[in-house]
């Protein structure tokens, strides 16, 4: 067991092997991700029963909850990749961190937009600074901070290490922000009206939600592999294997 782990570690940490691995995985991962996501969404939108109190606007949760969880998991994954990149100077960890940022920021934006559009019919207002939405807003700012820092520094290696440090600091900050915002909210509104928490929805709603979440996470993974391939080419542009790979007329 240990031998395969170390072999896998050495292989996956070499950009060249990763490029081949990603090129092999993407052609089937992408369609599966889209398929799973669509089934989850269609099931939730079309077939799931209406929610007693809210009516049909609750169907937004089938995109809102997966997006929120994806944005949060994405940032935590970036924190971990950042730590690995800083401590072990692993080029692939730096590549993954840069690859995860854009889609994470998109999911944070989607979470905010869908949360607001869901809030209006349900609680009468697009935005009410409740704990979850405020945390998501700060998370979006953290994502934008990393993307801005990474694009502001010219040397890709230095940009990656700077972004790694910021990601590690950011992850610690996300935890503290969550507590501070939750404290802020308990002070003012009492417990926010929890009409639809994960636990309270019945099975007919739970399955489409889980499938949509799986689909969106797979899509996130596919997007990360795509962007990581690009970043590997970018970082390895002077190496021999990229030259042979991209030589005019070479088979992709």
């Amino acid at each position, binding site marked *: 067991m240990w031998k395969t782990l170390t072999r896998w570690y050495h292989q996956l940490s070499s950009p060249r092997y990763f490029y081949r691995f990603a090129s092999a995985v993407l052609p089937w991962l992408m369609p599966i991700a889209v398929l799973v996501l669509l089934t989850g969404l269609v099931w939730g939108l079309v077939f799931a029963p209406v929610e007693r109190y809210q009516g049909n606007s609750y169907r937004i949760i089938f995109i809102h909850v997966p997006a929120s969880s994806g944005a949060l998991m994405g940032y935590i994954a970036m924190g971990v990749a950042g730590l690995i990149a800083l401590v072990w100077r692993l080029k692939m960890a730096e590549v993954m961190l840069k690859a995860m940022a854009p889609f994470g920021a998109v999911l944070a934006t989607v979470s905010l937009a869908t949360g607001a559009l869901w809030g209006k019919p349900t609680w009468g207002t697009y935005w009410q600074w409740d704990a979850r939405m405020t945390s998501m807003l700060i998370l979006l700012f953290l994502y934008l901070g990393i993307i801005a820092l990474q694009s502001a520094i*010219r*040397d890709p*290696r*230095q940009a990656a290490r700077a972004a790694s440090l910021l990601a590690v600091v950011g992850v610690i900050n996300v935890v503290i922000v969550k507590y501070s915002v939750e404290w802020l909210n308990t002070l003012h509104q009492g417990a926010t009206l929890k009409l639809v928490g994960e636990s309270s929805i019945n099975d007919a709603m739970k399955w489409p939600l889980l499938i949509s979440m799986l689909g969106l996470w797979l899509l996130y993974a596919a997007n990360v592999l795509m962007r990581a391939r690009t970043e590997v080419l970018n970082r390895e*542009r*002077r190496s021999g294997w990229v030259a042979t790979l991209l030589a005019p007329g070479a088979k992709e």
Partner: protein
Amino acid sequence: MTDPSARLTVSRLGCERDDRMLFQDLAFNARAGEIWQITGANGAGKTTLLRILVGLHGFYQGQVRWSRPLAPDLLYLGHDAGIREELSARENLQFSRALSGQSGDLDAALAAVDLYGFEDVPAGRLSAGQRRRIALARLWLGGKSVWVLDEPYTAIDQAGVAKLDARLREAAGAGVLILYTSHHRVGDGVRQLRLGAAGEGR
């Protein structure tokens, strides 16, 4: 090719900046008591090479190996001499001495670089040449066996050049390894390392 008596061993050293190779496959051994002059056109990466050797710049291919940990023995004068204009010559030197762990006498060092009488003038009001000499005064504080100097001869007048040459030869004689970038050659017996001019072979 590693030579046990070498204080510094560099092999297959290459550095890339803005998608262009500054230098590539650089290899040499430097031993205590030697003076190395590093030359090359502007932008050939001389400063970057020094910053790699002292450990400030980490993005390079190849290997840089010091036989003993460098930091305690290192006297590094960077491209900008690290002098703050708000502080006086003495205050600047006092801080550099404390930071690098040297222990020589401040006034003697400042006198050696003809700053006698200017010790307490804020560096901002001194001339460019005088400001650089505040940093050069560290060469007279002693206690360091590896000197890495980036353009030590800039803004130094004729008399200063002769004094600096003498000091470098004296230190090398006492076993100090000196690497410096400049067009000025200290004297014969100085080993030269020429980095490919940026324009060549483009």
